């Protein structure tokens, strides 16, 4: 009616314009979210760049001195050589440096180390990220699934002992920082009782990496303590969230109607409560997953686990800032990306949020 009748598609160009317009109309929600994410990413790039520039100290200096002594050239020339080799000139015009950084990022180059040659952020990510993800995602999924199961159960049996025990557990586990829990586990299980190894991801002396059983077993054995520490501390949070969400759902009228129809607690729990209560938790889960890419710095440092977090902290302490820049940007990028994906998936699982 109305508008569309008055507009006649005379030329193919006009038709194309209509198609584009329809596309924008239909996907407005997604497109605006993507635009917002891009803006955030750009601002993040800027912030990281300027943040790292504020660090005092000139790492090129040391390198230049070494070169000068090696090649017996003047300091100025040695400095130039150093700059070239390290791709880093502290005296460069800051805007030009930013543009270089920016263009490098767009092409996927996340920065190179100025301390070791042939080490770039990309290579570090490739080697270290899988280990970090292995630990963190195992722990996340274990704590999530245990958490929602327990949370669902205690929500239905609120007066029982289980709920009280759960509350105590939530209070305690939420108060111990995860790294302190890790310390406790290392002290007791690794040193005192020698049940699990205290460090590293696998024993390089006894197994060789690859898809062989001894390697996999060794990796799992080494991963036990970190995963256990992380899970113990975080399950409480999931229990709490699930319990709260379930209590909200249980108060709804359709649950009352289900009870009136005579459905058992277990049926109600699995068919009605879980699906509805999980909806807000999905966003939480997505955000937690995004946060994994930041690396659990302290956990990895306690276990000396060669993951991304340990790498970042080590490089910061040794002032290898160029590579740190790229690594932090990578983490931020992944967080933004995962959040965007969660926002796009959410309407698919929650019909109330869907747009026409």
């Amino acid at each position: 009616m109305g508008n569309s009748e008055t507009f006649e598609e005379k030329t193919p160009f006009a038709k194309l314009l209509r198609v584009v317009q329809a596309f924008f109309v239909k996907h407005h929600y997604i497109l605006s979210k993507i635009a917002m994410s891009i803006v955030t990413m750009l601002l993040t790039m800027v912030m990281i760049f300027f943040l790292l520039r504020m660090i005092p100290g000139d790492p090129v200096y040391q390198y230049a001195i070494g070169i000068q002594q090696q090649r017996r050239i003047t300091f100025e020339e040695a400095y130039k050589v150093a700059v070239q080799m390290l791709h880093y000139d502290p005296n460069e015009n800051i805007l030009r440096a930013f543009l270089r950084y920016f263009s490098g990022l767009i092409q996927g180059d996340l920065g190179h180390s100025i301390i070791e040659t042939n080490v770039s952020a990309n290579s570090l990510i490739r080697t270290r990220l899988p280990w970090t993800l292995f630990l963190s995602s195992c722990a996340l999924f274990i704590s999530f699934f245990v958490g929602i199961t327990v949370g669902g159960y205690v929500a239905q049996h609120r007066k029982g002992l289980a709920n009280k025990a759960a509350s105590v557990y939530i209070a305690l586990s939420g108060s111990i920082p995860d790294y302190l829990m890790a310390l406790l586990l290392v002290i007791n299980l690794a040193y005192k009782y020698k049940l699990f190894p205290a460090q590293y991801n696998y024993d390089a002396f006894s197994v060789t990496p690859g898809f062989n059983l001894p390697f996999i077993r060794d990796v799992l054995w080494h991963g036990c303590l970190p995963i256990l520490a992380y899970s113990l501390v975080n399950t409480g949070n999931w229990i709490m969230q699930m319990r709260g969400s379930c209590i909200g759902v249980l108060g709804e009228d359709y649950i009352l109607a289900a009870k009136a129809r005579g459905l058992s607690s277990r049926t109600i729990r699995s068919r009605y409560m879980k699906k509805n209560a999980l909806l807000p938790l999905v966003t939480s889960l997505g955000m937690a997953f995004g946060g994994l890419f930041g690396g659990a710095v302290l956990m990895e440092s306690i276990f000396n686990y060669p993951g991304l977090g340990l790498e970042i902290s080590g490089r910061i302490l040794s002032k290898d800032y160029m590579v740190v820049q790229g690594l932090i940007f990578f983490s931020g990028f992944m967080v933004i990306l995962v959040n965007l994906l969660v926002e796009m998936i959410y309407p698919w699982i929650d019909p109330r949020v869907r747009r026409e």
Partner: protein
Amino acid sequence: MIKRITSNVQLTVGLMIMAMFVLVTFVGPIIFPYDPNPVVTEIYLPNSLAHPFGTDWMGRDVFRQMIGGAGSVFQIAFYAAVITVLVGSTLGILSGYAGGKIDKIIMAVTNIFLSVPAFPVYLVLASIMTLESPLAIAVVVSAWSWAGLCRAIRVQVLSLKERDFIQICKVMRMGTGHIIFKELMPNILSYIIINFVIAMRSAILASVGIMLVGLASYDPTNWGAIVSAARGRGLINPMNVRILLYPLTAIVIFQVAALLVVNGLDELLNPRLKVM
């Protein structure tokens, strides 16, 4: 009012424990002064009346160290919470009430702070600045936590803004200052108070983490510093383990107390209908 507080078990217990900590902070060092000088003859003494928690690897009394350190722990938590709440709520109210461009700008900045992972940035900031005082650590720690609060308060302000009683203030020509401070704020005050305590909890978490990495060693009596030093000495040695456990337990107790206060305040200030 006092009666309402005392009738809430969680709140009372939590506040009492926290009050004890505060007491220790102020009165402790006077009753139990700490002598930082090493006494080489008394290394790793077991618990006794003279040294209730034993002595450390340099012969210093652990108990008194902890009492001395309570002050710096508390200071960090308090300053960080103040900064977080001030910055977070100001920006959140501004962003929610003003709307338009200001809102978009503040939200864009908040998004950055929410996307970049906090811990590596703490380390970077710690390298930029030398962390010499509890205020400095507090600033670093709260640099990341204000963003979450800002977003939450913005959401609340946005929904409150459309409520009838705010709309009628406009019809009655009441000033913006009145609307923000006398009408809006009292409605979100309970939320801000609860978040203050939450900010204290996360500040302690983050600050102890920073100390464990070794970047903030200005005050060796701070509980996090004791933990870090004990770990540095090697946890294979059970003596070090013993020393580590005291500050660890103290930290956990403080966190639990803060959690009780948060839950108690939530019950007190936001009465909800009981669900069958």
